């Protein structure tokens, strides 16, 4: 199962690795700035978020190399088992989950608390990809497929409720189906059906949403109403980014984060903090890293040696991209506030680990693109 040979080292995708490492380091620097004390010499000390994130980075890098070393054919073989475990964990979190902001997402294992949805989304990509490899979706999507990979996981996610993961799963389901060769006819039909069902699904979602989630949507639709100050937070994010102007206020010179005008300044709103300090130039530089990461990922999908690799790579890139879009869209005030982290930048140990593992799978696929099945 483990196989280290020269080709593995020679073909290792240093570009992807370098990109995520760079983004993560920028993230740690920004976490430091966002959580620093607003006035030097104030009572209290610098919170250690940045140190924790560094520690998690080390763990994540080790995990990434471990993932790269495993031939991804094993992921194909074990995909359904991963998926089953993932579903069980989702059920477990509903029963015994730890609540944060009114949503049950965390599972406490004593030594570590993690979000099963972070594991589940990767298991979903693998399982759905391995399912699609053996199916021809050109004519129709089997009901069992919709049920197993659509309705069941979505139902469990809605119950939590976890809007971010819900959006991701629907998107991945559509994207992977389309990439597997869904005919234009079905795509058109699906678009029509989904357009019709949006109010219906929206209703179910709405009924299950917590008040804070409802408020976010209301605030996005009409910031004037602003039931709980969410509109204020979006506005503060715009103020932070806008006040960065062309070259930014300078590192450690941002005010919106340390003075707590931004909520979740080191997690969901980390881009606002970065953009305030580094301005338009810095933001464009950061975006360049991301765009290269995504395009490289898509290239990996194109070059993957088998169907499974292609689909998994597509799924992982899509996941990164959707999170990136939803997060930056929120901070820029052009999308509703959905609490998703910015991949690799936001503070959060298990999220970083899961993203590195996903990136590891991506690197794995690229690294082994010349290998043949043994």
């Amino acid at each position, binding site marked *: 199962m483990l196989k280290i040979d020269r080709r593995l080292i020679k073909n290792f995708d240093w570009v992807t690795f370098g990109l995520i490492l760079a983004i993560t380091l920028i993230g740690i620097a920004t976490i430091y700035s966002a959580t620093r004390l*607003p*006035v030097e010499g*104030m009572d209290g000390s610098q919170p250690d978020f940045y140190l924790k994130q560094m520690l998690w980075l080390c763990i994540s890098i080790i995990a990434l190399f471990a993932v790269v070393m495993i031939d991804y054919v094993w992921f194909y073989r074990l995909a359904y088992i991963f998926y089953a475990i993932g579903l069980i964990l989702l059920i477990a979190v509903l029963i015994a989950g730890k609540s944060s902001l009114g949503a049950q997402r965390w599972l406490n294992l004593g030594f570590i608390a993690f979000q099963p949805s972070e594991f589940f989304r990767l298991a979903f990509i693998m399982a759905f990809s391995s399912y699609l490899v053996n199916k021809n979706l050109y004519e129709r999507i089997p009901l069992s497929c919709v049920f197993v990979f659509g309705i069941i996981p979505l139902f469990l996610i809605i119950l939590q409720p976890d809007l971010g993961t819900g959006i991701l799963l629907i998107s991945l389901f559509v994207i992977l189906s*389309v*990439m597997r*060769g869904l005919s234009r006819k079905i795509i058109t039909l699906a678009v029509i059906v989904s357009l019709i069902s949006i109010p219906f699904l929206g209703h179910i979602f709405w009924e299950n949403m917590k008040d804070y989630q409802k408020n976010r949507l209301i605030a996005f639709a009409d910031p004037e109403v602003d039931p709980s*100050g969410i509109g*204020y937070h979006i506005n*503060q994010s*715009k*103020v*932070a*980014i*806008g*006040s*960065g*102007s*062309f070259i930014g206020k300078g590192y450690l010179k941002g*005010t*919106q984060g*340390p*003075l*707590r*005008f931004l909520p979740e300044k080191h997690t969901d709103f980390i881009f606002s903090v970065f*953009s*305030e300090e580094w*301005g*338009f130039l810095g*933001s*464009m530089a950061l*975006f360049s890293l*991301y*765009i290269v990461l*995504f*395009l490289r990922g*898509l290239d990996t*999908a*194109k070059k993957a040696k088998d169907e499974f690799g*292609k689909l998994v790579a*597509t799924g992982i890139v899509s996941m990164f*991209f959707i999170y990136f*879009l939803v997060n*930056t*869209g929120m901070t*820029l005030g*052009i999308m509703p506030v959905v609490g998703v982290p910015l991949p690799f930048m936001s503070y959060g140990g298990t999220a970083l680990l899961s993203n590195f593992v996903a990136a590891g799978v991506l690197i794995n696929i690229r690294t082994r693109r010349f290998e043949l099945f043994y």
Partner: protein
Amino acid sequence: MFEKRIKIATWVVIAIFVLLGVRIWHLQIINGDKYRLMSENNRLRIIKTPAPRGIIFDRNNIPLVKNIPVFSVSINPENISLIDRGALAEILAISVDEINDKFDKKDNSSFVPIKLKQGLGFVEVSKIEARKSDFPGLFVETEIGREYIYGKTGGHVIGYLGKITPDQIKNPELKNFPPDALIGQWGIEALYDSSLRGTPGERIIEVDAIGRELRLVQHRQAVKGNDIILSIDINIQHAVEESFGEKAGSLVAVKPSTGEILALESLPSFDPNLFASGVMSADWRALIEDKKKPMLNRALQSQYPPGSTFKIITAIAALEEKVITPEAKVYCSGGISFGKWTFGCWKKGGHGSVNLHKALVESCDVYFYEVGKRLGIDRIHKYATSLGLGQPTGVSLYPIKERSGLIPSTIWKKEKRKQQWYLGETYNASIGQGYVTTTPVQMAVMLASVLNGGNVYTPTFIKDATPNLVRSFKISDATSRLVKEALSGVVNEAGGTARSAHSSITIIGGKTGTAQVVSKGKEAGGRFNDHAWFVAFAPVENPEIAMTVFVEHGGHGGATAAPIAKKAIEAYFKKPKTEQQKQNAKN
């Protein structure tokens, strides 16, 4: 197929990046300046520190007011959902409804504190501070308020501070004031508000999102307002208030040589401390609706016939116009007949033969009927108006509107009443009855000008202010001396009507008067009793103080008003300083 769709995906990714880039460009480049300003406004807060108000002193440098901290309680709106409203209402001693009103107001912004109560004292504040932990977001602010050391004494003059009114906030000079600012609303406090007020200081601080102060960015000290030294003497005010007792009325004393007001009391008075921290509406209504009208400034706003005090004018006019000589005598048999009417003298048996001196000393009405007849109403009118009657004196005491009194004339009667003037009316006017009305402050100004040789000054409350000469109406020295001697006789000679004003400290001169109250029946001491006037000055040689005392329903001036004048004049000359006052003066 897959490769084609990957290609499409690639373009989708690039397109979305372009969109995000445009959005960032829009925020940072196009609106960068706007957002930079907003972020500065976010973190910087300007806190005005109130300027200590100028102190108001009396003419002997005794402070009349003290600056004291007044407290107000506010709450940060983000905390109101956590508040037990009932308990809060209890410790603030306001009703739950009031709290509900303030909390549930529609225009509450989520970051501007809601002011719950103003004008709290130390005791209330310490109560609140003790229980503050039960009410997150509750905080106490300090403003500068006033303590009026002498309470009711001089209340009408000193006035009080009050919450700025919506109308006042429209005034461009006041438009930067916070909506709850305390500004002068009455009396000297209002009249000289802009000078007393000073310039508030400014502290620019950096705050975080929950409003915690993090660091001082800039600081400008508040500049204390200017002190004011009033011309009034608090000792006189105090003596006046004491000697009036329960009686209503007023006293105005001026310095004849300048028009400075040495004392002005209107009784009953009100305690400005009631208003000092923004008056409670119930107290205010009680004052407004009080039947005794404590908010009425009787010195400026009550006008009544001056009675015999007006004989001073008639006497001066007669001497100056030479319609009679000082020695010439008129026989008083107790009244004169005119047509079917009889005009009586107050002394039923008559005074016998009286000259000017005796006529003034004993206040013989018949003598003045006779000289009034010789003068005619228009000459009386000329002297009265020239010496300050029949028109506002120009004394300003916000927000009081001074009344102008009335000095009738033939022209006035023709224009206003469309009637000709009758001789009987001249008789009445000669002794200050009938149409003639004056205010106490006018009578004081009139007397001052008679004593200083005819200079009418606008009365002022500021010590050593440049005298504002309204008119100089020459009265001959001989006339002046004769009148002064006669007025001295009123107090100091046997048969004088104001013997009760005789003082061992100084020689007082004066003239009594009675304003008849038109009534169906007279009950002694009751509300149908006549109003008493007394005008007085001292010392007779070279007068330093001239005053009017008016006692509502006081009966005869000699009995009730004269002793009050005597007390006031003695207070002026004695200038006793209590230990407390010396202490205050030092501070």
